[in-house]
């Protein structure tokens, strides 16, 4: 199980690298959305491993509310970029 966890962490590094390298703000937003989903899945996986329901609820809430919040952020950024 530890191996699976390490593989998941290494996959988390891919969007971090992408968010650092890419200059386009939309690519960065994509990287953020990807990372937020991946961390939520990671929290769910660990909560199942430890049989801890409190952590699982945190993961579920981040998974649902987090991406809705990035929609809001994308709307604000869209207004800025289209005006220029």
């Amino acid at each position, binding site marked *: 199980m530890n191996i699976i966890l390490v593989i998941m962490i290494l996959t988390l590094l891919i969007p971090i690298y992408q968010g650092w390298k890419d200059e386009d703000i939309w690519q960065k937003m994509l990287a953020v959305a990807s*990372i937020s989903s991946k961390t939520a899945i990671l929290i769910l996986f660990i909560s199942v491993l430890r049989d801890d329901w409190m952590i699982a609820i945190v993961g579920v809430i981040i998974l649902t509310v987090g991406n809705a919040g990035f929609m809001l*952020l994308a709307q604000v950024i869209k207004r800025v970029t289209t005006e220029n």
Partner: protein
Amino acid sequence: MNNPDFSLYLITALLPLSAFLLVIQVNPFHALVIRGILGAIATLVYAILGAGDVALTEALMGTLLAITLYVIAVRSSLVMKLGVLETDFQKETQASISTEEKEKKDLFLLIISNFKKIIRKYYLRLELLSYKDINNLEKALQEKEVHGICFPINNNIKNNENLDNKNLYETIFRIERLYEIISQENSNVETNLSYVNIKQNKEEN
């Protein structure tokens, strides 16, 4: 890798890594987006260390609310407000629909696109505000509604159609720093464009 704490160390090491990425960002908008990455990873670390309530607060307040409010704050502060005449303003709104060839013919559109190019390096945004005539334009500058005004020098607007290509534009900045930025990179701007810097010592009542 057999150590059960190994993956915990690995996850915790992601936090300073993403914090470093946040610190080296130059563009304020990019920094805010990277702040989202930092928030997501901080939530992960807090959750696996057993602090579910802290993780939830970090995700909802620290990441979502703070970033959205900061984006709105940066959007409204990093802006250069330029007052223009109504006729020029209409040209600009029409030009955004049509092709860029029109931009080369019209001096005003050329000036505006040049301004945009220069201030983009400083992550500023150009906002045009339209006014009816030059008197209203100067009044807006006096009352600090705009950072600068741009208008044709010959006051008789009716002659504009005949002298369309020979029209001279004058730009006045209220902010000294904006004037410095624009005048330093003046080499690309058309020659028949002049800048005047007015310092206002008007006492605020």
